[in-house]
């Protein structure tokens, strides 16, 4: 079946290291996206004309451009055009954060404007300060509403990190290809075993996140 190649030498370790590269890039860019996305989303919800125009262009740009094109633009483009020397991993982090922030901001904006004004007003009438209103009334409701969509975004980001091999980062998929190439003669079936294993690895990485989300949804059902 081609699983045997994984037991040769340090192939499995290499694969796991590759997975770690992909996960590291996702983890960092997801964290950046959440923080920046909340800030940008709050700005968007303020509904000011200039902010709306700028964020709209930003959002549309991100949605129109395939992530791979963005990667090339940043990695090769910045190096050439601006003379900045970005490492492949930095470029990847920039692109994924740029993308994640836009998507996250849109989720935050959507959740924010879906909270009825009366929630703010009745909090104010009860004597809550602005900060307390956000802390105890608005943010808990927003987090609940955003949870399923943000989990979806995060898993999408993790999966999309496999694109970084296009700019030379050796992540799990690239390692897999290398292993298959190296064993073309000895085990021609390696492709199946290696890719099946990678699939399983991605599953193991994303599964707990989606379980956690299900758990929270259940807990917050009311």
């Amino acid at each position, binding site marked *: 079946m081609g699983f045997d190649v994984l037991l040769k030498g340090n192939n499995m370790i290499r694969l796991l290291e590759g997975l770690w590269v992909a996960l590291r890039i996702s983890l960092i860019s997801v964290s950046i996206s959440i923080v920046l996305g909340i800030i940008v989303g709050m700005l968007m919800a303020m509904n000011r004309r200039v902010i709306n125009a700028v964020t709209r262009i930003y959002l549309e740009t991100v949605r129109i451009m395939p992530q791979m094109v963005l990667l090339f633009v940043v990695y090769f483009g910045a190096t050439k055009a601006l003379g900045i020397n970005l490492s492949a991993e930095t470029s990847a982090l920039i692109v994924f954060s740029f993308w994640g922030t836009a998507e996250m901001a849109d989720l935050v904006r959507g959740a924010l404007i879906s909270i*009825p004004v*009366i*929630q703010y*007003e*009745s909090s*104010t*009438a*009860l*004597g*809550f*300060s602005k900060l*307390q209103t956000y802390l*105890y*009334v608005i943010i*808990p*409701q927003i987090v*609940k509403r955003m949870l399923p969509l943000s989990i979806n975004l995060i898993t999408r980001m993790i999966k999309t990190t496999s694109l970084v091999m296009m700019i030379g980062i050796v992540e799990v998929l690239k390692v897999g290809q290398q292993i298959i190439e190296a064993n073309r003669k000895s085990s021609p079936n390696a492709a199946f075993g290696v890719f099946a294993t990678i699939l399983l690895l991605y599953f193991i990485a994303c599964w707990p996140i989606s379980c956690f989300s299900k758990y929270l949804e259940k807990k*917050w059902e*009311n």
Partner: protein
Amino acid sequence: MGEILTIKNLSKRYEELTVLDNISLSVNKGEVVVIVGPSGCGKSTFLRCLNGLEDIQDGTVALGGDIINPLKGNKSRSREKIGMVFQSYDLFPHKTILQNLTLAPIKVAKRKKDEVTKEALELLERVGLSSKKNSYPRQLSGGQKQRVAIVRALIMHPEVLLLDEITAALDPEMVREVLDVVLSLAKEGRTMLIVTHEMSFARAVADRMIFLDGGKIVEEGSAQEFFDAPQTDRLKKFLQTFSYDKD
């Protein structure tokens, strides 16, 4: 019976639209004032100016001698002395009924959780909703939600309670259970300003009736004078819209 709420020359404008035009009114402790008037005449705006939800362009609102609108600095402390219940359901959907009651006393008034919980349970008992303490707002009927909203305001020990058409969104059969609670509050001497379209309720509960129209107090008086002997044509016409005569 001292004066508790004093409104002097209050004006409220939205750009060029004058919603409230130089209104003065004083309310005594324990008095129930019912405000009626055609839709859009500024009743809600008036109540919202009283607890500082709206800023005002002219005049002052004072509670027990302290000016609370306009107010510089931290408004939240003075707001907790004026409770308000709105027309649309405004309970916190992510909190249980009990938590809806205890959140503000604990976080705003910094009271002890045990003591607040005890009071909350007593209040729920009083409005017949003890069994709902661990339910969430969406599991309650409209009438039940409004009863909770009333006790959520009460638990802050407000000096004045503002009720803005709290039964307007309810199915008719639920109006009674909510208004009965309000009547019992009137009996125990709560100071309240009530906006309502329920005229027979108004008549029963009001110490004073006010007819608001065109941004001004057009007529005011005891419930009896107001309903049985209206002075102005505008009030007569307004009251006619509530009565039905066969030809």
